């Protein structure tokens, strides 16, 4: 409890509160604009946050994440175009409600749903993380290797349409972690005698290249400027009819559970949870035919679920050091930049800092609620994003951000290499999430693997004779094999 109070003391410092507010606002704006996302803001801020106090840096990064998850519903409701895929299902009923002239009601439901999803899920994460970490510290390198391996295969297995390309992405990410000195034996690998490569590739260079630089270049090439706000209706302010809330309490609780659970699984997250909870709400409804016509149930379900996924994703990130998606991978990278080793020992070694992460997310959720309640009338303005102003600033900030890591233009050249790699991956259709996850986990995976073999005196079978490791590896293998078997069976069925 004293750790929580100490963390609260840190959070309530004016500079930290300011970071929470600024981060939440940046995330909210970028999350609302279709084509941009909070992940982009985290990418830009990652190298800059290096110069800040870790508590302030993480208050900023977590607030961007929370704000970004929250903001994406605005585009869904007002334009019928989600800011990010996490609010895709919200378009079905949210936009229908807007077309009926009830945009204020839809936005109000979305606003409250965001808070009801995020805040309790963070509180649950706050309680669950120390418990899970206490169990996780008892695990050996066999289990950690298996856990990291499972996280990557789960992400690969849901690679859109092409698992082989998912594996190519994972292989490339893994390969890039091997540039520089190897763990344990400090053997030089793939540096080609270059001083600049001996330290390996920095997280910021990779993130900026893959996520920001290449996206801006392609948006310019394709002349993508996002939709202009076509909303001409009148917004009256925050108001939710009592029955909209009371009749949806079971729906809210169910959607919260779905979001929390899906958020916990690597590779799933908000983009999946909003669809699953919408489908579940529809299937459990007495009036499923009304879904899609603009009913409150169809907004509560996806918006509570996608925001509950935040808390779900925080649990493996803090308790196990396993990222669930690109954004959590960046946050984990941020921890490494600040010299904090993610994983179960983090909770033990830095309890105040861990609670500070949770509390800053809670604070961001609260600030988000207040800003959305009082700023509801300005939501349409957010969607008229001046891309010609945003993109140049982001591009310059990205390149200067990587410069300040080393004070060397070589870092910018490295970032340019990753921009080129990002463009190639886009051309080749290689998904970025397996790549990033492998890049984040690759180094520690190799350490765990080599330690496991060394501790077992060369005995590889220990990976399968230790129960937890065996279960995790079986899940990993199953996640890859089962979709292939299913596909083959479906093909045979279709042929017969």
């Amino acid at each position, binding site marked *: 409890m004293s750790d929580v109070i100490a963390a609260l003391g840190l959070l309530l410092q004016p500079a930290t509160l300011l970071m929470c507010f600024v981060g939440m606002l940046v995330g909210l704006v970028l999350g609302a604009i279709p084509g941009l996302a909070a992940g982009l803001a985290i990418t830009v801020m990652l190298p800059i946050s290096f110069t800040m106090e870790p508590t302030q840096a993480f208050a900023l990064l977590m607030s961007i994440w929370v704000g970004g998850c929250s903001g994406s519903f605005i585009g869904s409701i007002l334009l019928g175009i989600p800011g990010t895929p996490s609010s895709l299902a919200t378009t079905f009923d949210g936009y229908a409600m807007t077309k009926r002239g009830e945009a204020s009601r839809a936005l109000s439901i979305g606003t409250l749903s965001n808070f009801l999803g995020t805040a309790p899920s963070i509180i649950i994460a706050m309680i669950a993380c120390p418990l899970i970490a206490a169990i996780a510290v008892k695990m050996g390198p066999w289990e950690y290797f298996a856990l990291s391996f499972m996280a990557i295969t789960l992400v690969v297995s849901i690679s859109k349409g092409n698992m082989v390309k998912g594996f190519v992405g994972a292989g490339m990410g893994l390969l890039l972690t091997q540039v520089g000195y190897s763990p344990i034996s400090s053997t030089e690998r793939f540096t080609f005698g270059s001083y600049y490569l001996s330290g390996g590739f920095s997280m910021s260079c990779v993130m900026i290249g893959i996520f920001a630089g290449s996206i801006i270049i392609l948006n310019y090439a394709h002349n993508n400027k996002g939709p202009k706000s076509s909303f001409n209706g009148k917004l009256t302010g925050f108001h939710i009819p009592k029955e909209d809330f009371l009749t949806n309490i079971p729906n809210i609780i169910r959607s919260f559970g779905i979001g929390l659970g899906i958020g916990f699984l690597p590779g799933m997250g908000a983009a999946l949870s909003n669809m699953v909870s919408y489908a579940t709400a529809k299937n459990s409804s007495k009036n499923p035919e009304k879904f899609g016509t603009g009913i409150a149930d169809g907004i509560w379900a996806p918006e509570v679920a996608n925001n509950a996924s935040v808390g779900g994703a925080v649990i493996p990130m803090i308790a196990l050091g396993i990222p669930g998606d690109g954004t959590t991978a960046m946050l984990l990278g941020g921890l490494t930049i600040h010299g904090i080793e993610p994983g179960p020992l983090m909770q033990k070694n830095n309890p105040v800092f861990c609670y500070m992460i949770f509390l800053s997310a809670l604070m961001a959720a609260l600030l988000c609620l207040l800003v959305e309640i009082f700023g509801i009338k300005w939501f349409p303005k957010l969607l008229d994003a001046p891309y010609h102003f945003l*993109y140049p600033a982001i591009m310059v900030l990205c390149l200067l951000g990587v410069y300040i890591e080393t004070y060397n233009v070589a870092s910018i050249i490295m970032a340019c290499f990753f921009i080129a790699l990002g463009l190639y991956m886009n051309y080749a259709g290689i998904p970025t999430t397996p790549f990033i996850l492998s890049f984040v986990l690759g180094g520690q995976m190799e350490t765990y693997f080599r330690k496991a073999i060394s501790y077992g005196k060369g005995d590889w079978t220990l990976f399968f004779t230790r129960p937890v490791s065996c279960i995790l590896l079986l899940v990993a293998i199953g996640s890859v094999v089962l979709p292939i078997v299913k596909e083959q069976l479906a093909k045979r069925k279709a042929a017969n």
Partner: protein
Amino acid sequence: MHRDRIVGVITTLLGAAIAFLTATRVAASNMPGDPGPRVFPYISAGILILCGLILAIRKPAGEAKPFLQGVEKKRFLVIIGVIIVYVVLLWAFGFVVPTFAMVMLLCLMFGKEEKVPVWQAALYAAIITGIIYVAFVMLLHLRLPVGKLL
């Protein structure tokens, strides 16, 4: 050739190059019981070769959508060129002038259809350059490129 096949060939060649470099350039471990620093590069190479071969050999699913079409190719090359020139100028002349020029140019490029006036782009570039300088140098006490030729 279908794009998947091209990607397959590139991936296979990359995997083969990594396997070759690992065998010839990475020292084996002399620690007893340690599988050594070659194992993971070999695993990466194995994944890339196997997946590359699958992509190169299997029948591609449908026609690939063109990556860039017509004028998009020109726009793509222009923005790549602008970024390369910016990096060179940053190295040569430091932060202030190249950043101002880069933001202004990108602003005009992205805002071509909106017909963003030059004065507006210049004002915006000056504001952004100023904000970055104040935030990085004065508030965060960081250094920005000063230029090798100045």
